[in-house]
């Protein structure tokens, strides 16, 4: 096991900068998600760490050892591919044995280790099958067993659950997390699914256009996004844009919004505020007017009932805000109804424009 350090890595393909000066630390034993839209460079970064491709500039080290020019087969990594990439000409056991066998391990050692790995992914009895006789979830487990049986220093997963259906994906998320805890391996996985990133990882790195936008624990990124992109890509957010006032922003129509979280910005600078939809309370009456509470009037334009909660789209001054209300048995608001929205400054994140 080992930590991975990526320092100032850049990689261009022709005129396209796939990675632009990315630095990120993956501590030993952690579970990391690299999250970003397609084309953000997350897979390119994973391939640099794996050694399929070398950076133009910058350094990559695994367990303190500099590896940026070491080819993949010498890096002692384990990788799980999006399409599983199981060898179709080999049985499940032979697939798992491949890494040990090319290393020249003794047959008895291989048999023991393969069985242990298959047991770990709960496929102990299916060693004799061919990959095409397995379901998608089982193939995924074989791919995982094959990647970890060689005791790699780091486990890399490229959208590992992307090809599975929703229910199976949730099962595999739990399973993957269990296995990762059990063997304590540093794990880096690429995903475009923000929910997957939130539920599984200890830390998340958000990438956009080849740059690392923000990196940190899921709660921190969710509660304190440092950019509009981070706020809207990880979870939902209502964004207000205006001029910084010192303790919030003033919108174009003069409305002040107080922000208790985020950057300290000089008054007058362009700035945004982000508010999560579930932090906003929605009511039909004006209620108590507490000057500390952000208050906006609006009109419900649409309601989506989703069982345990309802989403309201509220129009105000040319902007549509999203509000999520837990289903507590209270009466639902009608479309077209005038409403008052309230939320505290502590739920409002101030973000420098950019």
């Amino acid at each position, binding site marked *: 096991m080992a930590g991975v350090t990526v320092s100032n890595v850049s990689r261009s393909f022709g005129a396209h900068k796939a990675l632009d000066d990315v630095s990120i630390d993956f501590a030993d034993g952690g579970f990391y998600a690299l999250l970003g839209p397609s084309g953000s460079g997350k897979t390119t970064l994973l391939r640099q760490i794996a050694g399929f491709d070398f950076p133009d500039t910058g350094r990559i080290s695994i367990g303190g050892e500099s590896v940026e020019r070491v080819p993949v*087969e010498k890096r002692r990594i*384990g990788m799980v591919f999006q*399409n599983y*990439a199981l*060898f179709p*000409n080999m049985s499940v056991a032979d697939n798992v044995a*491949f*890494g040990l066998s*090319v290393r020249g391990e003794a047959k008895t050692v291989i048999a023991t280790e393969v069985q242990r790995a298959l047991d770990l992914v709960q496929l102990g009895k299916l060693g004799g099958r061919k990959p095409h006789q397995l379901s998608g979830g089982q193939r995924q487990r074989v791919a995982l067993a094959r990647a970890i049986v060689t005791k790699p220093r780091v486990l890399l997963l490229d959208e590992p659950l992307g090809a599975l259906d929703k229910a199976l994906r949730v099962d595999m998320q739990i399973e993957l997390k269990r296995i990762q805890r059990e063997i304590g391996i540093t794990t880096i996985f690429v995903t475009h699914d923000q929910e997957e990133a939130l539920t599984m990882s200890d830390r998340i790195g958000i990438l956009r256009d080849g740059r690392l936008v923000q990196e940190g624990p899921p709660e921190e990124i969710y509660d304190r996004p440092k950019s509009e992109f981070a706020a809207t890509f990880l979870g939902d957010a209502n964004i207000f844009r205006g001029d910084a006032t010192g303790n919030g922003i003033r919108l174009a129509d003069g409305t002040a919004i107080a922000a208790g979280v985020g950057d300290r910005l000089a008054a007058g600078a362009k700035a945004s505020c982000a508010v999560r939809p579930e932090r906003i309370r929605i009511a039909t009456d004006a209620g108590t007017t507490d000057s500390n509470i952000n208050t906006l009037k609006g009109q419900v334009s649409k309601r989506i009932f989703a069982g345990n909660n309802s989403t309201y789209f509220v129009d105000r001054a040319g902007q549509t805000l999203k509000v999520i209300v837990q289903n507590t048995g209270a009466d639902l608001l009608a479309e077209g109804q005038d409403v008052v929205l309230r939320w505290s400054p502590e739920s409002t994140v101030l973000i420098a424009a950019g």
Partner: protein
Amino acid sequence: MAEGAAASRGGLGKALPLLAPAYLWLTVAIFLPLSAMVFFSFMTDLPLTGKPWAFTLGNYAAFFSQSLYLTLLLASLRLGLEVTLWCVVIGYPAAYVLAKVLKGRSREAIFLLVILPFWSNGLVRIFSWAMVLREGGILDAALNAVLPFKINIDLMYSYPAVIIGLVHSYVPYMVLTCYLTLQAIDDSLIEAGRSLGASRLQVLKRVIIPLSMPGLVAGAALIFVPVVGSFMEPRILGGRTGTFYGTVIEDQFVAVFNWPLGAALSFILLAVVLVILAVASPVLRRAA
């Protein structure tokens, strides 16, 4: 299985109009002449000449009574084996580069160069080689222009010349069949192998070659069978050394006019080739 059979039986009615022209053509152009040849091979003389004729097994007996035919057959089988091997050695790497290394326009360009021999007349191709290989020919001239000392290769009318001509004619089959299986192999399999610590050579040996075996087998069958019966390349490029089973059969038809013997020798060759393929196929299928 049963369901599939039922479905195909239901589809046969609709498929018949589409299949009929092909099968009609095959019947007229292949099956009837071939049947006639089977018939001839059991005759003492051709009925067309007006001479009296009778049924006989003598044509087949001739093969076993003269060791020359067996010797030539073995030489032809060896020729087929050698040409097939050279086609694998030359064609497989070319197919690999086409399928896995080159992309876009350069792939199309190289592909065209591979297919080009197909589009040129076989005889023209062979005589071109004759010009290259003969004493003082293009090969000698080119080598002498580069090398400081006088060299005289003179490959013309030799066994290597026959091999060169045949490999040139048949290597595109190997390239094409291997290309098809190689390009169907997902690149991520190669990456998966390497991520598990396998060198490029180990990945080639354990993953790529086993997965492209069907293409190698198909290419080998497409090359081996016609090469064993070939006569044009051996005759023109081999000269006096170019006497093979195929040239003897050709002689029976065009020179000696002993069609019955020629037909019998042809069917013996067909039988031998079928036996070889039947014996080899389970072995090759297991490898694949």
